């Protein structure tokens, strides 16, 4: 084995006093060899990101590396003066981040941002020479028309293009190590697949090393040569990718791999009787532009029809901007649809006046995406959960008694009622949000990306809970997700949306087994780790 490029020895990163534990990273030893991809995988709070940031000397304020060494070419990066680190940053070690929009300067053109980086390290006096270099890099990233891209500002680019620009910047000085911190988490699946392929290709072509930080075992299966699994700041398992994925030794690794949805559907479609809800030809336009510019309307939802039966889960799948969330918000009348009808229990609720709608509202409830903004931070869990029944005039004592039952149903004990939302984890908050919706005994539950903000093991628990609740209460569920794997796990039928239109719909099993449209095929092919993760 060749000499390792970087060896991290017994790295300990201390958290400021008052944090939930003393060390974010606790005695981690890892090596990264030349020309390999090492994936660090773990759930949020495992210390995987801080390990990557420590190598780059980018620990956040108040967090310090209190012990250990990070050896790079005989020098200990933790003891290097700032000027020394600055020379290494960008030239030898480069980094890309999760959110390319936040990492790019919004008021400076792409061309200037790349050339600035080049000229900070290399003596290139000719501006044109640097620009040519930048253009060449963008072309290498597979971006069409690099010349005009150099003149663009970040907001004019798509998410995938931005991440390619970030990678181009990172590679502009031919670093020997690229640290990629969840570089595809904020991207759509098809874009994610392209970026992953790009990173892999460049790594091979340039024979460099990549430290790839991710929470997704599917991505690990696609990318890694070696894998390190982290939990609570420690490495619990490390080894060759084939070994760790095919034959995991540690029980935590096994649990993580088992929690990854496989994208294989086993659910039978529910018998179709008279639908509980039917949407016909619904459209919703959004106007862009102000008073002075001509208003261009964007069709967010374009003549969509669907039916939903009692006891069934219908998945609405699509990438960002496909109109799936707008559709859901029109069904529940958080938005008013422009055209079309929503028949619910014999009445068209699409055009109903707010006063007439109120008694029907309680029968269609929603679980939201963001567990941090969906609960009022100033109310106790008890107040949040009984707010719905109280709005309909239910007696407060009765409501509280029922709230205790419902909280137990979603797996929380009744003591939670006196506590505030910030005292709970993301998964627990989603359970509270579900309890709030269930308090009104709805017929239909709309779940808008309910698990996309959660860790994979928590995600599996919440999905199971949603399915149990659906069965117990005989709910009809509209399940909105961008993740084909999740859809396969809980949905009886799926509807694939793109640019506001329905591309394909049908029973989940047949759509996954024999997709009829190219777009669905592309979505399925983009699922990370597909076919590489063995059933455990």
């Amino acid at each position, binding site marked *: 084995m060749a000499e390792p490029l970087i060896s991290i020895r017994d790295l300990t990163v201390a958290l400021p006093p008052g944090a939930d534990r003393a060390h974010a990273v606790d005695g981690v030893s890892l090596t990264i060899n030349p020309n390999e991809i090492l994936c660090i995988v773990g759930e949020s709070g495992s210390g995987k990101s801080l390990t990557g940031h420590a190598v780059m000397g980018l620990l956040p304020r108040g967090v310090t590396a209190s012990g250990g060494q990070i050896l790079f070419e005989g020098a200990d990066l933790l003891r290097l003066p700032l000027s020394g680190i600055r020379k290494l940053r960008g030239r030898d070690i480069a980094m890309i981040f999760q959110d390319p929009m936040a990492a790019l300067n919004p008021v400076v053109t792409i061309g200037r941002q790349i050339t600035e980086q080049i000229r900070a390290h290399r003596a290139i006096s000719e501006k044109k020479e640097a620009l040519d270099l930048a253009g060449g890099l963008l072309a290498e990233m597979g971006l069409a028309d690099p010349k005009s891209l150099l003149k663009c500002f970040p907001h004019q680019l798509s998410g995938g293009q931005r991440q390619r620009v970030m990678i181009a910047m990172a590679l502009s000085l031919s670093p020997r190590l690229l640290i990629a911190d969840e570089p595809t988490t904020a991207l759509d699946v098809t874009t994610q697949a392209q970026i992953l392929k790009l990173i892999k290709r460049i790594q091979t072509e340039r024979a460099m090393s990549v430290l790839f930080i991710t929470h997704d075992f599917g991505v690990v299966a696609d990318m890694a040569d070696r894998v390190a699994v982290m939990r609570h700041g420690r490495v619990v398992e490390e080894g060759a990718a084939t070994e760790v994925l095919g034959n995991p030794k540690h029980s935590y690794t096994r649990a993580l791999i088992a929690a990854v949805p496989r994208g294989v559907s086993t659910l039978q479609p529910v018998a179709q009787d008279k639908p509980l809800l039917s949407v016909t030809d619904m459209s919703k336009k959004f106007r862009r532009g102000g008073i002075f510019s001509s208003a261009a309307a964007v069709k967010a939802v374009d003549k969509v029809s669907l039916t939903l039966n009692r006891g069934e889960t219908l998945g609405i799948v699509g990438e960002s901007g496909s109109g799936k969330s707008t559709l859901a918000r029109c069904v529940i009348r958080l938005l008013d649809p422009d055209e079309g009808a929503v028949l619910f229990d014999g009445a068209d609720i699409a055009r109903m006046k707010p006063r007439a709608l109120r008694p029907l509202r309680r029968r269609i*409830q929603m679980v939201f995406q963001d567990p941090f903004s969906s609960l*009022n931070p100033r109310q106790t869990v008890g107040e949040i959960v009984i707010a719905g029944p109280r709005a309909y005039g239910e007696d407060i004592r009765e409501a509280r008694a029922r709230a205790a039952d419902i909280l137990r149903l979603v797996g929380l004990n009744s003591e939670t009622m006196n506590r505030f939302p910030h005292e709970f984890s993301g998964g627990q908050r989603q359970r509270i949000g579900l309890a709030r919706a269930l308090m009104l005994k709805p017929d239909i539950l709309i779940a808008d990306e309910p698990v996309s903000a959660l860790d994979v093991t928590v995600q599996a628990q919440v999905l199971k809970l949603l399915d149990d609740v659906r069965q117990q209460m005989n709910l009809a569920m509209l399940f909105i997700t961008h993740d084909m794997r999740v859809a396969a796990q809980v949905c009886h039928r799926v509807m694939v949306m793109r640019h506001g239109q329905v591309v394909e719909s049908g029973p989940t099993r047949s759509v996954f087994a024999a997709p009829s449209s190219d777009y669905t095929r592309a979505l399925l092919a983009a699922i990370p780790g597909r076919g590489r993760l063995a059933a455990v």
Partner: protein
Amino acid sequence: MRDSLRVFLSRPIPLVGLVIFAVIVALALLAPLLFARGPFTIVGMPLLPPGAPGLLVGSDVLGRDMAVGLAYGARISLLVGITSTLCAVGIGVLLGAVAGYYGGWLDDLLMRVTEFFQIIPSFVLLMVLVAFMQPSLSSTVIGIALITWPQVARVVRGEFLSLRGREFVQAARTLGMGDVRIIFTQVLPNALPPIIVVGSMMVGSAILTESALSFLGLGDPNLLSWGSMIGGSRSAMWVAWWTTVLPGLAIMITVLALNFIGDGLNDALNPRRRR
């Protein structure tokens, strides 16, 4: 909320402000008990210096006890400061909440009205209003409230604009809550911290404004306030410094204390600025 209180009390500057403010409030409340004869009673020769027999801080141009005047003046200053701020906060919260929550043309309309009040030189407007309504305590309070509510309305509108898009507000709508209920039980409690901060600062500036009005003789002629004490003594400014400097100091210390409290509240209630 309990955390915020601890942060507030753990810092020296807001605590100093709170203590000073408490002393002034106590003085104002106890004035009728301490000085039963009232602020207008003549007790001796005019312009006696501080330390003269029986006169702790001297007498004014008419031979009235300055100490009594300062204590009674505190009553008027605090009364005007607090009630006018409460009125301004009431108007501002109501209009700002409606504008921010509903948006659209209602927001445009209300914000143009708000701007109308903001583009007129506010003190000139105030003088016109008070002169028009006859100088009295209530006209002072109404006038100050009318020129200060726009800043509250702006802050509240901004908070409501950002809060109404949050998922918990959408959740409240899907639960079938009415708009009034959502505004008061869901959104307003979350918008409270900046309102409290702005309010505490406004009390100080209302006291200043009242003093300026009284100095110009536009205050209630039957009540003694710090501003009217300065106004009435300005002819004696060069021969008896205490007649103007002491009420001026009183105003300064009170406003400073209120600003200290406001700063402390800002730190304590703003989660981003907590350590």
